[in-house]
């Protein structure tokens, strides 16, 4: 059997689909359709009996045949021995049983790992905060772990005095901490024309949400005496090899929303996310959240940087490109059940997912289980914050028949997430960026969930 490192085979509680052979799966499916649980149990038991290594059966919660569940009757080592001491690991890590939960590359998407993407495992996350180690990655020229004592931040351009700040100085200034989502403008890009990838990790995994801590950029611009009236555009520039540049509107900066951030979820930014300093531009696509931020320049014209003149431009059917497309419009996705998962039995499920809007708070999320014919409003879990992920839940009893699950978000401006048909009518299928269409997951009779698009 194939195990993650360090996993004791005798104690792993593996998913039933791992030890059911093809005949076993067919039996389960056939019997589950008739609702005959006994057959399912015996199929699991038969499969387990045939396995080379004894496997504890927790999934399926079988009624005991020998007077009780051995997991209850036979006290395990952790109930009868002494556990490990404090600070065994100075920086704690997830359980070894969680090793499937990883950010991953989409095979064939890019030719290099330094100009590439890894996707966050949305199907395995709870709530609204993305664990920092699972935050999606997008690098243009590789990532670095920069010595923060040598990092400098410069402000120049239309300012009274160009300024230089050390990290020590930036961290002395009044700080704010705010939850915001960051979504790559190309999230869901491969799905513009048709279904291309199997799971929510690959369709929607270029989004993450963190509590960011930092200083409003406006504070630093005021220290430098920036011309806030004529300086309508601000260039943000990274300190790495790509020295990524993007144009930020001054109106967003003067609102106080744009942060020069060093903190992420209670600790410093991770190197992959721009340690020690990055820009946070709430509601705007991730490419503007310049990592390894070394400089901002105040100007009176936009900059047409490579990533706003060659990439991150949206091709329309008439052959024109929309330029300076920044806002991530209202969008949502059901994360469970979602593509690549399997429901093993009929009965109750909690449909859960994420909603967000670059224009403010999520106001409502509706969920359909019949492909958009009928909808019910989901419960929004607190907190519901502006330009942050919002978690939604809704009860569902699966009757074992095919179902098509969708979610549809509405934000506080009244904007409703579009269907694929509406989006394609407006923008065609070659836009690449800003695909915020309603996602459909087909639950088949065999319990397998597939990524589908509807006509």
């Amino acid at each position, binding site marked *: 059997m194939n195990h993650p490192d360090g996993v004791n085979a005798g104690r792993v509680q593996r998913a039933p689909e791992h030890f059911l052979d093809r005949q076993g799966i067919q039996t389960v499916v056939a019997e589950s359709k008739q609702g005959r649980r006994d057959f399912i149990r015996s199929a699991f038991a038969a499969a387990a009996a045939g396995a080379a290594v004894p496997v504890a059966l927790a999934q399926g919660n079988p009624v005991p045949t020998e007077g009780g569940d051995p997991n209850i009757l036979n006290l395990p080592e952790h109930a009868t021995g002494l556990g490990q001491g404090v600070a065994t690991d100075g920086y704690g890590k997830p359980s070894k049983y969680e090793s499937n939960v990883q950010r991953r590359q989409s095979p064939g998407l890019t030719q290099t790992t330094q100009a590439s993407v890894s996707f966050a495992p949305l199907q395995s996350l709870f709530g609204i905060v993305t664990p920092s180690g699972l935050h999606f990655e997008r690098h243009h020229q590789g990532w670095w772990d920069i010595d923060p004592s040598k990092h400098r931040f410069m402000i120049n351009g239309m300012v009274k005095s160009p300024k230089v700040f050390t990290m020590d100085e930036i961290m002395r200034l009044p700080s704010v901490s705010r939850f915001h989502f960051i979504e790559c403008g190309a999230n869901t890009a491969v799905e513009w024309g048709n279904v291309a990838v199997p799971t929510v990790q690959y369709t929607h995994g270029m989004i993450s949400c963190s509590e960011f801590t930092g200083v409003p950029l406006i504070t630093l611009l005021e220290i430098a005496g920036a011309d806030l009236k004529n300086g309508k555009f601000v260039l943000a520039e990274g300190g790495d090899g790509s020295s990524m540049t993007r144009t930020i509107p001054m109106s967003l900066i003067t609102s106080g929303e744009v942060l020069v951030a060093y903190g992420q979820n209670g600790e410093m930014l991770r190197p992959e996310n721009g340690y020690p300093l990055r820009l946070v531009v709430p509601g705007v696509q991730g490419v503007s959240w310049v990592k390894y931020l070394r400089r901002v320049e105040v100007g009176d014209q936009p900059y047409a940087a490579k990533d706003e003149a060659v990439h991150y431009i949206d091709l329309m059917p008439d052959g024109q490109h929309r330029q300076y497309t920044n806002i991530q419009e209202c969008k949502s996705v059901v994360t469970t059940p979602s593509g690549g998962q399997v429901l093993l039995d009929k009965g109750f499920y909690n449909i859960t997912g994420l909603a967000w809007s670059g224009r403010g708070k999520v106001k409502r999320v509706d969920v359909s289980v019949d492909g958009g014919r009928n909808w019910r409003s989901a419960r929004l879990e607190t907190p519901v914050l502006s330009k942050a992920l919002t978690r939604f839940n809704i009860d569902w009893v699966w009757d074992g028949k095919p179902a098509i699950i969708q979610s549809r978000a509405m934000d506080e401006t009244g904007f409703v997430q579009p269907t694929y048909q509406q989006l394609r009518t407006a923008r065609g299928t070659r836009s690449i960026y800003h695909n915020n269409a309603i996602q459909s997951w087909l639950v088949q009779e065999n319990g397998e969930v597939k990524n589908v*698009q509807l006509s």
Partner: protein
Amino acid sequence: MFSSRKAWIAAALCTVSVWAGAQSAAYPGIGRAATTKEVAAWDIDVRPDFKGLPPGSGSVEKGQDLWEAKCAHCHGVFGESNEVFSPIIGGTTAEDVKTGRVANLRRTDFPGRTTLMKVATVSTLWDYINRAMPWTSPKSLKPDEVYALTAYLLSLAYVVPDNFVLSDKNIAEVQQRMPNRNGMTTAHALWPGKEFKGTAKPDTANVACMKDCIPEAKVASMLPAHARNAHGNLAEQNRLIGQQHGVDTTQPEGKAVVASASGGNAAPAPAKPAATKAVDPAIALLSKHNCTACHAQDRKIVGPSFADIAKKHAGKADYLSGKIRSGGAGVWGNVPMPPQTAPDGDIKAIANWLAAGAAK
């Protein structure tokens, strides 16, 4: 490194000399004035109006030598390679240089989009080569080398002749020959400010219908069976416990499973199969051309029911053909119907069916 940018440095120096030492009243002791050397070292951006462009020049010929030495292994000798990065050169024509719009961008069948097809501003090329290229040793090129490489790329796209020498003096004229210089628009709602005078109105307007919103859900696209394991075993990409587990994609779906759920690779059974019998061939066309996404037989969804249309426009097949083709709004309410691109014969068949009473 950028010592040739004396004019810009002088300007910066002047600014600093006035304000150097100025301290923020609100946050004393935080931040110091940047020196002219520091600003010159980092302020490398070049704007579309060429603010920030250092003086210098470089020939196509010199650019070709540099290109073959430092760039061709990733981008191909002619900037055409698709091996590592997307191609830079290709897809533009002499006509595009005249019009400033790349005609191939209108073609849905044109394979790929090169950098020269997209980029509207020559400053972008100069700035990016200067700051980020070569990929493994960015910022190693001198200004004259950046001019030469830019000139070489432009010559490959027939924007400048083979004997051209690009410089800060003539780059504004070259801008007037960029193939897609008129190809950008800021008339959209995705800029979070009013600086571009775009629009505040989003380009989609879904409504939050709750009941009987569409007649049937029909699957139009899903992954083919051979792609089942293309992203690796999905069972290993899900938590071991939870309300759902990952499906073992190293195994094919069981035959019984496939037959019961989807009948092979065809679209699986919809949540509620359409019960309509196709008596008139036009009825099959309604589904084929997605009319049924917005219209139902006998009740209003997004658009009016077929029965209501038949009643209102009885006998007016030509009028209905025209309406289907061009779309419209106002006859049945404010929700617009987009123009339809179905074949003429199909549109006529549907219009005839409607005009004749839309019988089931």
